[in-house]
């Protein structure tokens, strides 16, 4: 299996070269989830400093592979790596920004935030156990809505994805049946549904298919003007996907005591918490081969922590609290750029 990394390295080298030739660009690759924000940051950073960021939004798994193949300066993943995995590859991991995943539906006459679902019902829809929109379990949560007797068209990801990881992680916590039959991972054995590639693929599919349901990162739901749902959280309260509810969930995270910043933010306690919140992570080498590139990348992240919060909020991401970004900055000491 040594030939695949070589092929991949060659491919990425060619792709990266086009960027590298132009200027001292920072190269990164990975998660699609924070891509809208990273590209916005990159734009502003370029205007301010003249240094560009070349970020390829190819998916979390691919991002991890790229950084392992050392073809990029940093990898980005929505699924944090555990401490053992980080140590094995000599990687340093830190959270960059938080966001939320929302279920989206395409139902005639239903406005954004009107339909209420809970974890159990959502799991049963994705297990294929709840097949019709007027199923008793959905009706019970939505007594005032008239729901059609049509089949639910389930849309999910066809590629491996950090968004899927966080979504299935939530379903695993919310439904014992899901935990037993499917579980949580970047790619799972989906019992039902059609697969679409990427957050944009799912958004496109749900927008296109009547009576469908899907899950996307909140920014994608907003940009595509999709009908998101409300969810019942761990405390039993119905919450709308808003920056306030995302922040409420994020506030629970105990970053200081998490080795390698390994934190999964789904199904957090608290009355106002949005149940599917997630952080997205950056992966870098502790002992990078290209020290200048690594320094440049850290400068960019430092700038993003300092000046990027407003832009993050604008796109409905949740900036890291100052205490956390200070922790992250401290952790950069372990990256040997000199």
């Amino acid at each position: 299996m040594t030939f695949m990394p070589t092929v991949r390295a060659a491919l990425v080298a060619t792709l990266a070269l086009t960027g590298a030739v132009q200027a001292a660009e920072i190269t990164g690759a990975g998660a699609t989830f924070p891509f809208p924000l990273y590209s916005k940051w990159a734009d502003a950073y370029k205007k301010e400093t003249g240094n560009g960021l070349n970020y390829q939004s190819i998916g979390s798994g691919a991002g991890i592979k790229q950084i392992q193949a050392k073809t990029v300066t940093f990898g980005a993943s929505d699924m944090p790596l555990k401490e053992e995995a980080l140590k094995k590859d000599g990687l340093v991991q830190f959270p960059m920004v938080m966001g939320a995943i929302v279920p989206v539906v395409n139902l005639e006459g239903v406005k954004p935030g009107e339909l209420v679902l809970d974890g159990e019902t959502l799991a049963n829809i994705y297990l294929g156990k709840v097949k019709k929109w007027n199923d008793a379990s959905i009706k019970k949560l939505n007594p005032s809505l008239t729901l059609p007797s049509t089949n639910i068209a389930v849309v999910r990801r066809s590629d491996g994805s950090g968004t899927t990881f966080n979504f299935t992680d939530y379903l695993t916590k919310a439904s014992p049946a899901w935990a037993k039959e499917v579980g949580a991972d970047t790619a799972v054995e989906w019992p039902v549904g059609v697969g679409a590639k990427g957050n944009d693929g799912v958004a496109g599919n749900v927008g296109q298919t009547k009576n469908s349901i899907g899950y996307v990162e909140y920014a994608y739901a907003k940009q595509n003007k999709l009908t998101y749902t409300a969810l019942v959280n761990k405390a039993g309260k119905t919450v709308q996907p808003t920056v306030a509810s995302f922040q409420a969930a994020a506030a629970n995270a105990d970053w200081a005591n998490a080795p390698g910043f390994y934190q999964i933010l789904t199904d957090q306690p608290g009355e106002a918490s949005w149940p599917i919140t997630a952080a997205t992570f950056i992966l870098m080498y502790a002992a990078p081969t290209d020290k200048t590139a690594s320094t440049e990348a850290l400068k960019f992240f430092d700038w993003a922590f300092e000046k990027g919060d407003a832009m993050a909020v604008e796109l409905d991401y949740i900036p890291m609290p100052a205490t956390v970004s200070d922790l992250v900055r401290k952790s950069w000491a372990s990256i040997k750029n000199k």
Partner: protein
Amino acid sequence: MGRATALPSSFGGCVSDITSHQIQSQSERAAALASFKLADSLFAWLTRLAALCVLALLGAIIISLIIGAWPAIKTYGFDFLTTQRWAPNAKPVPILGGLGPLYGTLVSSIIALLIAVPVGLGIAIFLTELCPQVLRRSVGIAIELLAGIPSIIYGMWGFFVLGPILADTIEPAIADFVEDIPILGTIFAGPASNLSLFNASLVLAIMILPFITAISRDVFNTVPTVLKEAAYGLGCTTWEVVRRVVIPYTRVGVIGAIMLALGRALGETMAVTFVIGNSFRISSSVFAPGTTISAAIASEFAEARDLHQSALILLGLLLFVLTFFVLSGARLMLRHLARQQGV
């Protein structure tokens, strides 16, 4: 007479010309011949090298596919061909089986052929036998243009236009109509899905149509007019001429066209990935989502690791083998037909 006498004299002049420069020209001739010989052998070697390149490339692709697929072959063996489950997240080892994509690849291609072959041959027959001269050129060019449309365009059309029409009107109508008929009721069972095996098959059918039509039309044009006229002279109808003269005469070419189309249908990736729904589960209904080998690879490869990636490469190897068998099957069939005709 004047011509006859003039000829020897001019000939003689020529000969004397040659003799006067004989020694010099002989060595020149040898040199020229040698250089021809060199160029000839160089040319021969270059073409040989080009041909060998193809073989080497083919061998290299097979070898790298086998190396890449080896971990999956070792883990799953022949069970890979009979397992439907595709669970890359199963613990402790992923459970991966290629039955779903294999089934989807074959079924979507077969349905596409079932639709495209009669329609394509129909167009070709119309163009060569029945079409008024004026229309012939424009329809022919339109068909050739169809072949030039990039596959992603077909995919987008299938996704945005065909999918909703199928799912909202055509598929439910078919499902209702055949509901009580035993076998058809299962094949065309609802619920209709925007993205389905049937949608993919239709898109594939449209994509391979120009191949079948263009090649069939060309081979139909090779039928000697005298044969057709003789048949018409005997009182044959157009149908009889097509059935008894044109098709038998061009059988080999038509089969070649169909096989080329099948080859394209088996390997088509982008358009199919758009419209098939990427589900590894095999459903008895063609209105349900499915997947094909190339669609599975396209949508999963970037994120796959270890065994998962190896299993995807194994799928690629299977597609390679499948295409190889289809093409060699076509070759054998053609040879068999040729022998029959020879007797």
